[in-house]
C-alpha cells in the first residue's frame, strides 16, 4: 500500500478502472459533500446561502475537534466512547469554576479546571487500556457511565449559568479577520495535529502501534506511554471542543455531549479512518466532520425530525464501514 509502484501496477491490472471512476473514488468525500449541499439546496434554497455556509463552517469546527480527538485513539486500534459525557462534565465543571471565581479573570480557572478533569479521564482510560490491557471499547463504555454520573450530579443536574460575558465574547462571538474564533481554533488544532502525526516520533508511533502492535514492540516502541499519551491527548482535545461549545451556549450544560460520541465516531469513520487502526489522518476527520455537519444542517433546514436524523447517522456509519472495508480489499 505504501509502495507506489505496486499500487500503480495493481491499478493498471484492474480492467474496470477508468480515470473517471478512479477520480470519483479518490475524491468521493468532497464530492459527497457538494452533492449533499446541492440536493438539499434544491429543496431549500437557504442551504446554499452565504450565511448558512458560515454556519456550517462554525458547526463543523466543533465536530472536527471531536472527530480529531477520536481519530487519535482510533489510529491506535482504540476507541473513546466516553467522549460525549466528557464534554458534558468538562462543560459543567469549567462553568462552576468560572462562576465560583467570578470576574473575567476566572475564565482562566474554568479553562484549567475543564482541561484538568479531561486529563484525569484520559489518564484513567489510558492506564486501564495501556497499563492493564483491558479492551478499549468496554473500558471507555464503563468509563462513560462513571463520567455521566458525575456530569449529571456535580451541578445537581442543572445548567450552570452566570458565566463571565467575556467568555462567550472571546471564544464564540469574536471573529478575527472575519472568521469566527471556533474556525480559527479548529484550523490551528488541525495544523498542529497534522504536524504531530507526520513529523514527530510520537505521531509515527501511533500509526505503528495501531497497524501492528507486535511489530511496534519489536521495533522498540514503548507502547504503554504512547497509548497513555494518545488517550490523554484525545481527552484534552475533547475538553477544548467542550469549552468552545460551552462558550457558545453561554452556560454549563450537563446534557451537552449526549450525541457527540456517535457523531465524532461517524465523522471519523466516514472520513476514512480505519477502525482496525493505523490508517487515516486528521484530514479524514476534518472532511468527515464537514460531511456529517452538512448532512445534519441540511436535514435541519428541510425540517427533518431529529429522531430521523439519529436513524440516518446509524445508517451512514454502517454504510461507510462497508465502503471502507471494500477499500481495504482493493
Amino acid at each position, binding site marked *: 500500500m505504501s509502495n507506489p509502484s505496486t499500487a500503480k501496477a495493481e491499478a493498471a491490472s484492474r480492467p474496470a478502472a477508468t480515470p473517471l471512476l478512479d477520480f470519483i473514488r479518490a475524491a468521493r468525500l468532497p464530492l459527497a459533500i457538494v452533492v449533499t449541499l446541492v440536493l438539499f439546496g434544491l429543496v431549500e434554497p437557504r442551504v446554499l446561502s452565504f450565511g448558512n455556509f458560515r454556519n456550517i463552517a462554525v458547526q463543523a469546527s466543533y465536530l472536527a475537534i471531536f472527530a480529531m480527538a477520536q481519530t487519535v485513539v482510533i489510529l491506535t486500534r482504540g476507541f473513546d466512547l466516553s467522549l460525549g459525557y466528557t464534554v458534558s462534565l468538562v462543560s459543567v465543571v469549567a462553568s462552576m469554576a468560572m462562576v465560583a471565581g467570578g470576574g473575567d479573570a476566572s475564565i482562566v480557572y474554568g479553562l484549567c479546571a475543564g482541561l484538568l478533569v479531561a486529563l484525569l479521564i484520559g489518564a484513567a482510560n489510558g492506564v*486501564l487500556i495501556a497499563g*492493564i*490491557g*483491558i*479492551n478499549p*471499547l*468496554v*473500558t471507555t*463504555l*464503563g*468509563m*462513560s*457511565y*462513571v463520567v*455521566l*454520573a*458525575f456530569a*449529571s*450530579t456535580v451541578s445537581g*443536574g442543572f445548567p450552570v449559568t452566570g458565566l463571565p460575558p467575556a467568555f462567550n465574547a472571546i471564544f464564540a462571538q469574536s471573529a478575527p479577520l472575519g472568521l469566527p474564533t471556533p474556525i480559527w481554533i479548529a484550523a490551528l488544532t488541525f495544523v498542529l495535529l497534522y504536524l504531530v502525526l507526520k513529523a514527530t516520533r510520537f505521531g509515527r508511533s501511533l500509526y505503528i502501534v495501531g497497524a*501492528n502492535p*507486535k*511489530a511496534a514492540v*519489536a521495533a522498540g516502541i514503548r507502547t504503554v506511554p504512547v497509548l497513555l499519551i494518545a488517550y490523554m491527548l484525545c481527552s484534552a482535545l475533547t475538553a477544548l471542543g467542550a469549552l468552545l461549545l460551552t462558550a457558545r451556549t453561554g452556560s454549563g450544560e450537563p446534557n451537552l455531549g449526549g450525541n457527540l460520541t*456517535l457523531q465524532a*465516531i461517524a465523522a471519523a*469513520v466516514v472520513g476514512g479512518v480505519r*477502525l*482496525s487502526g493505523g490508517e487515516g489522518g486528521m484530514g479524514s476527520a476534518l472532511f468527515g466532520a464537514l460531511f456529517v455537519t452538512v448532512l445534519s444542517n441540511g436535514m435541519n433546514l428541510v425540517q427533518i*425530525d431529529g*429522531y*430521523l*436524523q*439519529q*436513524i440516518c*447517522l*446509524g*445508517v451512514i*456509519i*454502517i454504510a461507510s*464501514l*462497508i465502503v471502507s*472495508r471494500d477499500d481495504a480489499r482493493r
Partner: protein
Amino acid sequence: MSSGATATAAAPVKAERPAPHKAGLLDRFLMQGGIVITFLLVAVVATAIMEPRFLNRLNLLNVMRNFAFLLIPSLAQMLVMTAGGFDLSVGAVLAISSVVTATVMLVGAQYLPGMEWALILLSLVAVIGVGALVGLVNAWLVTGFSLSPFMVTLAMMSVLVGIALYFTQGIPIYGVAESFVSGVGRGQILGLPVVLVISLVILAACIVLQRFTALGRHIYAVGSDLRSARLSGVATGRTLAVAYLLASVLAALTGFLMTARLGSGQSTIGETLALQTIAAAVIGGVSLRGGVGRAEHVALAALFLAVVANAMNLTQVDSKFQTLVLGAVLIVALAIERLLLRRRGA
C-alpha cells in the same frame, strides 16, 4: 511471522518458570465462578447487615423480578459474546419491542375486541418477528461484510432508538390489555413472578444448549477461533447468525415482558441495558475475546447486579450514582480478569 518470534522468545522463559499450575486451587476456584460467587455473597451479606429490610419477603420478590428482567438480556449478551461478538443493540431492541407490543395491542383491540389473549399472542409473535429481523440484520452486517460487531450494533442502536422515538415522540403508549398486565406482568406461578419463571426456563435452556448440543459447542468454537472452527467444518456464518438471532429475540422478549410490568409501551427504556448486560456477562466470566462463558455464572452475576441495585435503592443512593457503580464494577471485573490472565502468562 511476529507470532513465531514471540513464541521462540517466550519458550526459554516458560521452561525456567515453576510449574504453571502451582496456584491450581485458587485458579480453579476463580475459573469456576469464584469471582462472581464471592461478589454475590459479599453483596448479599453486606446488604442484609446494613439494611435489614433487604430480607423482607416483598423486597426479595422485587429483587427476583429485577433479576429476571436482567437475566434474559444478559443471557442474550452471553450468547453473542461467547461467539466472539458484541451486542450493544439489546437495549434498543427492548425499547422498540415495548413500543411494538403496546401498538399491536392498541391497534388490534379495534379489530379483535374482547379477545385479549389473542391480542397478547399476536403481539408476542410480532415482537419475536421484530427481534428476529434485527438479529438477522446484525448477523448479516457482521458476518457478510466482516465488520466490527461493536460498531455495527452501536450504529444499529442509534437506528432502532431513533425509530422507536420517531414513532412515539417519546410518549408512552397506553392501552395495553388488562389481562396482559394482571396475568403476565403481575401474575405468579407457584408463588413466583411469571417473569422469574420464564427467565429460569430460558436459563435452563441456555445451560442445555451450551453443554449438550452441537450448536452450543459450535458457538464456543466460533468464538475462540473463527478460522479453525471453519476449517474443522463448522458452519461459522450460520452459527453466528443463530447467536445474534437468539440474542435479539431474547431482548425482544424482555421488552414484551417489561411492557406487561409497566402497563405501557415505552420508547425510553433500556438505555443502560447494553452496559448492564455486558457487565453481567463479564462479571460472570464471559471473555471479551469469545469462546469462554457459562450461563449459570452469568445468572449469578445478574443476581449480584440486581442485589447491588436493590441495596442502593434501599439506602437511597441517587439513581445517577448507580450508573457510576455499574461502570466501575464493569471496569474492576475486567481488570481482575485481565490481571489473572496475565499472571497465568496468557
